């Protein structure tokens, strides 16, 4: 498979307001040197807990926010080098489905108009053909043509998510970024939307980046996955292998924290979780970011940061238990 998207050392620093006149402005590094490759036709999973930088990564890839540094290659283009016009063209080929299906839609605009507007924005077709195409798209995602004039509040969460998918797919993109597309949906509806996404992927030859905090879904839906922790990838590999045999202590904690739908599996009081919480992005620990919560921490973990090392077999891990390599120190903060 050829590479469709290459992300190298992507970094995004947000400056946030000062607390007092004398205090310096503070910086949040939302994404801190992330690199990965997405191949044509695959589904690449991005997993991690709230605030680890999943959405920011997606927005950076689309250049909806400008990276502080890094390089993005998409389908033969140096994305950060594209001018406005070129970027507009690229955006037709890379679309996003947003995290919250309800708020992603304009409450006063009919869902059909929302879908057709994507075409208008890109100057495709005339108003007649756009309406027709939007209606067809509604059918493709399992709604009906007559839903065109409905308003968002008349639709369920699952239906709104289908509208979001229709809106992303009407441009026939190559890459679709799915930001928690099923997290707000009930289990039975979630399965319907996942099946739809898979069918459409096969039909249109789509490449997906699938963002989720649900490891169980990622394991089944994605071919490859990367685990993010505080803006950094800590582990990467084939999703089945990573879930079956996680190497990074954080990935292990994620896997072990999920209660199993089996009354004979460990009960809540025996779940082998981890202590503590995600450190604030404002005060990233000096050594390994996971050190404070890690059950296997060693002395050097507090001082040095492990590099993401290729272990072969498509697996990469950033942990001193698996390699002594240290991460290069970041230049900006």
């Amino acid at each position, binding site marked *: 498979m050829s590479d469709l998207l290459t992300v190298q050392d992507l970094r995004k620093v947000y400056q946030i307001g000062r607390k007092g006149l004398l205090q310096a402005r503070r910086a949040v590094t939302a994404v801190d040197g992330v690199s990965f490759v997405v191949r044509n036709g695959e589904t690449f999973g991005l997993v991690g807990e709230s605030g680890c930088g999943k959405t920011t990564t997606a927005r950076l890839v689309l250049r909806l926010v400008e990276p502080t540094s890094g390089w993005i290659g998409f389908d033969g283009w140096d994305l950060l080098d594209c001018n406005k016009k070129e970027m507009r063209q690229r955006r037709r080929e890379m679309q996003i489905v947003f995290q919250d299906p309800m708020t992603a839609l304009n409450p006063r605009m009919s869902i059909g108009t929302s879908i057709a507007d994507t075409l208008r924005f890109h100057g495709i077709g005339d108003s007649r053909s756009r309406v027709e195409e939007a209606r067809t798209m509604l059918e493709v995602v399992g709604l009906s043509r007559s839903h065109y004039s409905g308003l968002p509040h008349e639709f369920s969460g699952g239906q709104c998510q289908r509208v979001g998918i229709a809106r992303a797919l009407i441009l026939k993109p190559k890459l679709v970024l799915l930001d928690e597309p099923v997290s707000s949906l009930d*289990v039975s509806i979630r399965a319907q939307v996942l099946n739809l996404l898979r069918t459409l992927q096969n039909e249109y030859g789509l490449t997906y980046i699938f963002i989720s905090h649900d490891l169980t879904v990622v394991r089944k839906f994605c071919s490859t996955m990367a685990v993010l922790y505080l803006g950094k990838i800590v582990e990467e590999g084939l999703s089945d292998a990573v879930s079956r045999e996680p190497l990074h202590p954080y990935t292990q904690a*994620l896997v072990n924290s999920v*209660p*199993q739908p089996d009354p004979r599996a460990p009960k809540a009081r025996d779940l082998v*979780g981890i202590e503590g919480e995600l450190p604030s992005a404002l005060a990233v620990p000096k050594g390994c970011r996971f050190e404070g919560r890690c059950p296997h921490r060693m002395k050097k973990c507090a001082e040095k940061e492990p590099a993401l090392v290729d272990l072969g077999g498509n697996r990469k891990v950033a942990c001193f238990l698996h390699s002594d390599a240290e991460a290069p120190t970041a230049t900006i903060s």
Partner: protein
Amino acid sequence: MACEPNVDYGPILRVVGLKTYFHLRDGTLQAVDDVSFEVGTGKTLCIVGESGSGKSVTALSIMGLIDPPGRIEAGGIYHHGEDLLELQEDELEGRIRGNRIGMIFQDPMSSLNPSFTIGDQVAEGLVLHRGLTRNQARQETVDVLRLVGIPDAEARYDLYPHQFSGGMRQRAMIAAAIICEPDLLIADEPTTALDVTIQAQILRLLAELKDKLNSSLLMITHDLGVVASMADDVLVMNAGKIVESGTVEQMFDSPSHPYTQGLLNCVIDAETQRDGSFEVIPGVPLVPINPGRGCRFKDRCTRRFARCNREEPVLLPIERGHYAACHLCDSAT
């Protein structure tokens, strides 16, 4: 901590024929319709079901927190044999709510007041029910904050909700709910908004507290993993009705209602082939406004037959302690 001796070991809570309806413009929404169940002393009962099935309304009805256009139309809610529906609001407020029955609400952010310190809000129960001043309540409150795993509790007493992380806020909510050592704790999706590693911590905390306080737990969730890891007994709700009830083993080993079977099938089985499709329940949940005749699950059921359109099934025993409301399970058919 002391607890009142339980003379009989019957159910701590018995709900009988509860009907809570909302009188809306479009008609009457039968949010909870003829629901009966028991929470055994020292047991954990989980109510599971999809969005809108009536889980929260059931909990709010028990707490006496249904406001117009909602109304409890019929039924009895017996706490230690005393019918809470017969009590006046000031009695409920003064004696039961927050004292004998503690509740953790679905949305931790909206149930904490942003303009009061965490400590003062957690101490509320002691002030209200034991007539302590805030100063007198302080030490006990700090102890409870420590009990729920808030580090540095003494200092954090004076912080405001926005200065707490999501996980810490949820711990504070739990502290507020248990401060009067209730014998029944109602937790409405206490972990839905949390990351999985934090969820594991909170579930463990709830299980431990239940034992420590010698109380019973009524827990609402839509996550079957949470059910399997917490519940002794399970209720499955659909469109305002209980469709199945039994022990956690009965529910997972021999689900009898097609809806329960469907839910269990939807739970992603990690061991199955990655490219296999996801099991679904077709259609969307029924909203029980003027629901009409017959079974409320019939439109989504692949096994419906003539009787399902005519006649509403009632909960009938299939084995000891295991009930289902489905004509397929009715041996008289």
